[in-house]
């Protein structure tokens, strides 16, 4: 199972990569593995929305469960990856790459401090 060191993680299994104040967000390899075969993904927010950390980002359905994806940071949604809603299976295949979910222009970079490092997240999940 893959926990890229350059990313930050939420305890609710989302990852965040920040470049120039823009956070790219997705779900972790651990999350896609726990979900099993993903069949459907639906965004709860759209580009232009002002969103708050802790709110719902989207809904992911697998063959055995339906789960919420949570927003790890606050800000304005700048872009949504329609490729995921068109073909949710890519969440299983490439959760850190082509299956990124959305980009947010962050309000408060300090929010990153509350997220976990790869090492801490791996320890949290795999013990």
């Amino acid at each position, binding site marked *: 199972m893959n926990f890229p060191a350059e990313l930050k993680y939420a305890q609710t299994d989302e990852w965040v990569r920040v470049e120039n104040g823009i956070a790219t967000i997705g779900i972790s390899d651990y999350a896609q593995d726990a979900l099993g075969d993903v*069949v*459907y993904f*639906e965004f*709860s927010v759209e580009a232009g929305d002002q969103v708050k950390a802790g709110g719902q980002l989207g*809904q992911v*359905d*697998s*063959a*055995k*469960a*339906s789960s*919420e994806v949570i927003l790890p940071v606050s800000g304005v949604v700048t872009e949504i990856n329609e490729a995921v809603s068109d073909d949710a299976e890519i969440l299983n295949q490439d959760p850190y790459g082509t299956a990124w979910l959305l980009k947010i222009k962050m309000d408060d970079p300090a929010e990153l401090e509350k997220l976990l490092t790869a090492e801490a997240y791996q320890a949290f999940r795999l013990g």
Partner: protein
Amino acid sequence: MFTPHTQKDVEVMLKAIGIGKVEDLFSEIPEKFRFPELQLPPGLSEMEAADELESIANANGNTKTLLNFLGAGAYDHYVPAAVDMLLRRGEFYTAYTPYQPEISQGTLQAIFEYQSLICELTGMDVANASHYDGATAAAEAVILAYHHLKGKRTKFLISRAVNPQYREVMRTYVRGNQDISIEGDDAETGIDPSMEKLIAQIDADTALVMVQYPDFFGRVIDYKPLIEAAHNAGALVAVAVNPTALGVLTPPGEIGADIVFGEGQPLGIPLSYGGPYLGIFAVTNDLLRKISGRLVGETVDNAGRLAYVLTLTAREQHIRREKATSNICTNQGLMALASTIYMSLLGKQGFEAVSNLCYQKAHYAAAQIGSIQGYKQLFSETPFFHEFVVRSPQPAAHLLDDLRAYDILGGYDLSKEYPELEGCLLIAVTEKIAKEDIDLLHDALIEVTHD
């Protein structure tokens, strides 16, 4: 005798709550109201009870002995004997999808066939395994639109020409949700077939526009301008249908409806007060994940054999819980089966023939009644299916009472729901009505009007 607890169980429970005997639980109730003596007549034998119940039942009128022109949402069609015969087989005689559904391949196949027939009839991509009736299906359409648009739009425009009972049930359903405002069915917006005043109310906050086809007055209105206006504003369109009418009319799926629902009773289900009836519900592929209720899909098993399964269950309430579009998953399995048998027996040609007979006979009736001195067919410039509105020279309620003396159910008194239609009768004509029956109604109307 049903004995839920032994004497010992009761003693343990009484001791646990610290009282001596069961009667002590009722000590709060004043003595004189405890265990009142019921003034019941002496018991009857089975034979006497059957007689008594039959005499009570006979106080009801029924469509076997009365000539029936009453419709207004439920219609008196001929049901072939084979429908009941097959329906009452023990294998089918349950309203429920089994809890281990795939073990009952026959039940699932019947539902799959039902869904396929409904899709064909409505011109839609996906139909669910049914709802309770037309009114609850209408309410599900409102909830679906609300969730599909993520609760961001709050205005639900419902035509005043949608069945008043559907509108009442919708309001009951959403009463607890402050975000949903059901409007557009006021007297000011009215019932003009141009729909202009309703279209004018469509805006960026509108989630859903709902119309009926044919509408409550039997009128067949071209909804293309309304659907276009709704879609331009980003709203969904739900169309309530009478399935029988779709034998001759263009299916709403072909003119852009997002949701098609309706009362399935005309499809082989007898008239009865309180049901059971059948809620038809179908959507476009775009709304596939939002449709409530059960969905049966066709697949192959691990040996490559044709098999039926419950599919897309992740959207259902037992998995999605409070995030589900709806918490309804009960369907009218037996009634859906009745309609499946009915449609299969009639076939495509037979179905069209029933639809066409209703249409032709209703038009003969409208012409006959419209020719009576003092009577006028309303909306006569708008096409209609098998139901039409007639303004009579006297209050409709009196007229209907007088017609009962001729063993005729003359129709529906519209003034009850539409004060603007005082003295107006809604008259339905199905294939069961003969030309002679229509002439009988015509003659009876002349007699009761000149009394």
